[in-house]
């Protein structure tokens, strides 16, 4: 799937000045399998960018196309197809279900979309260091553990791009490294790309293209 941006400008950012190469109000495209780093300071619209791609915000001008289709024209079944097979998200607020266990949070995703075995999930959770919390409710886990679980959930489904909105904000360097290894491995497995937003210019995330906001 290719994603193209044609003079996209979120309404709340219309009165702000943007970088000359900013994604906003310019033409950009993201090709299938590309790894993208979106590096911007707070308030520049990283979460807005993620939410627009997820179909959660519609308050923008310009056009975004998935392949050649304008996403503002998407029907509900088309959005469901995007969410189930094309794009996977780690939202900044994680969007986990605190009353369910780690296992249930992930199984809710895999039961709907398939693609990963329970053994594989347990192996990944061990890699991320949350295997001991597998049967515990998410509500009692630390933010760092929740962030790793959100990454695990996002990787557990089929996708063409995984979009991660500041996914390491509560992780130390070691855990960030482990999480990134898993993201990279899974993207390679699926011939998919990642779109990674960060506000830390020192983040050492490898990328094919950097997008400014």
């Amino acid at each position, binding site marked *: 799937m290719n994603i193209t941006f044609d003079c996209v400008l979120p309404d709340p950012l219309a009165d702000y000045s943007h970088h000359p190469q900013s994604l906003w109000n310019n033409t950009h495209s993201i090709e299938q399998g590309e790894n993208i780093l979106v590096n911007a300071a707070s308030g520049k619209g990283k979460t807005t960018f993620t939410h627009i791609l*997820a*179909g*959660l915000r*519609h308050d923008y001008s310009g056009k975004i196309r998935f392949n050649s289709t304008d996403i503002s024209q998407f029907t*509900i079944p088309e*959005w*469901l197809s995007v*969410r*189930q097979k094309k794009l996977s*998200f780690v*939202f900044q607020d994680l*969007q*986990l*279900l605190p*009353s*369910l266990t780690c296992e*249930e949070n992930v*199984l*809710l*995703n895999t*039961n*709907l*979309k398939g693609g990963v075995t329970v053994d594989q999930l347990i192996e990944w959770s061990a890699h991320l260091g949350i295997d001991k919390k597998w049967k515990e409710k998410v509500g009692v886990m630390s933010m760092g553990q929740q962030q790793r679980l959100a990454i695990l*959930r996002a990787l557990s*489904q089929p996708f063409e791009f995984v979009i991660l909105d500041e996914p390491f904000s509560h992780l130390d360097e070691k855990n960030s490294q482990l999480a990134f290894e898993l993201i990279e491995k899974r993207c390679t497995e699926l011939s998919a790309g990642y779109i990674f937003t960060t506000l830390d210019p020192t983040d050492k995330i490898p990328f094919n293209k950097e997008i400014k906001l």
Partner: protein
Amino acid sequence: MMIKKLLFKNQDRKQLLLAAIGALLGMTFLITSAHFLYRINEFGEGSDVLGSNILVVQRKVTSASSFNLSKNDFIQEEIDEIANLPFVDKVQAVKSNNFRVWLETNSDMVPPFKTDAFIQSINKEFVDVHAKEWEWNQKSKVLPIIMPRDFVVMLNTFMSSAGIPQITDEVATSIPFKLRISGPKGEEWLDARIIGFTNEISALLVPMEFLDYANKKYAENQAGKTTQLIIKGKEGQFGSLEDYMSKKGLEPKKAQLIVGRLKSIISTMIVIVFIVSIIAVISSSIVLLQYMQLLLSQNSYEVKTLLRIGYSPLFISRIFAQYFSVVFALSLLAAFALFFLVKWWINDILQVGGIYLDQNFSFIAVIILPVSFITFIGFGTITARKNVMKLFNK
């Protein structure tokens, strides 16, 4: 399972229980009132061959009339006046026999039974039997007769004293009878068969053609006085007819008035209960649906998250609609069980009062269940879908 646990585990079940109890009570009242409304309206119909809204009236018997000091018959002008009243459909003089009549059983099935009888005749249009059955000519082999119901009671009293099982209406209609008529000009025996029963007239009813024939052939004097009229009132104007009769000193048979009034009062009361029940069912259904909305708004984060990870809004709204449909279905089943008990209790009370209604579940009581359920599912699905859709792409 996981989704149901997520959406329904943490809820205030007290409110759900109260709404379900409301639906249960409302549905119980609704089914019960609809059932009894149907049964009360049905009461007395079909068992009497004289159609509904029919009264047989005579002048009030007073001491003066007993000594022939006041008139107790009707003249043609009076009959015409009644016929022209706006609330009267038809009126006719009831003709009587002016010769002697005896009726006796003519079967080995029942012991010999013989009685003096009094016959009257009314036109076909007042008789609620198949027109062909109510025909007679001089070539007819059998004379059709309509019996006063009191006659069956009398016959059963006789059977009982003779140690023979009592007979039903059906059995009575299969017993062959002989009718003997006699006058100064001779006598005649006729085979007779009961084709129906009436509470309204105390004489044996025969077709007009037979009475005309027999009066002509055997009567001592043919021009008898008209002392009774049969009146068919217009639907729903019973009160006007009753007022008119009261003003004119006419009286119908007491039982007719009592049954008419009773049916009218009970039906009115049940209609009120029925309307209140419908309001109760609608209110409790609204409470249930509002509770669904409350649950959806309490779980809006969970629903939004499910939608964001790719669950379909239709799938989620179906889970809510199904859950509340099960709650409503359980209330319906409990209401039907409660209705069964209430029906049994009310029938018992009515039987003590001498009112025997059909004990079976009425069609309306049974049909209300699926109709209410389907209506609730419809509204439940719409409510759930509308509220879940509000959270899609949010």
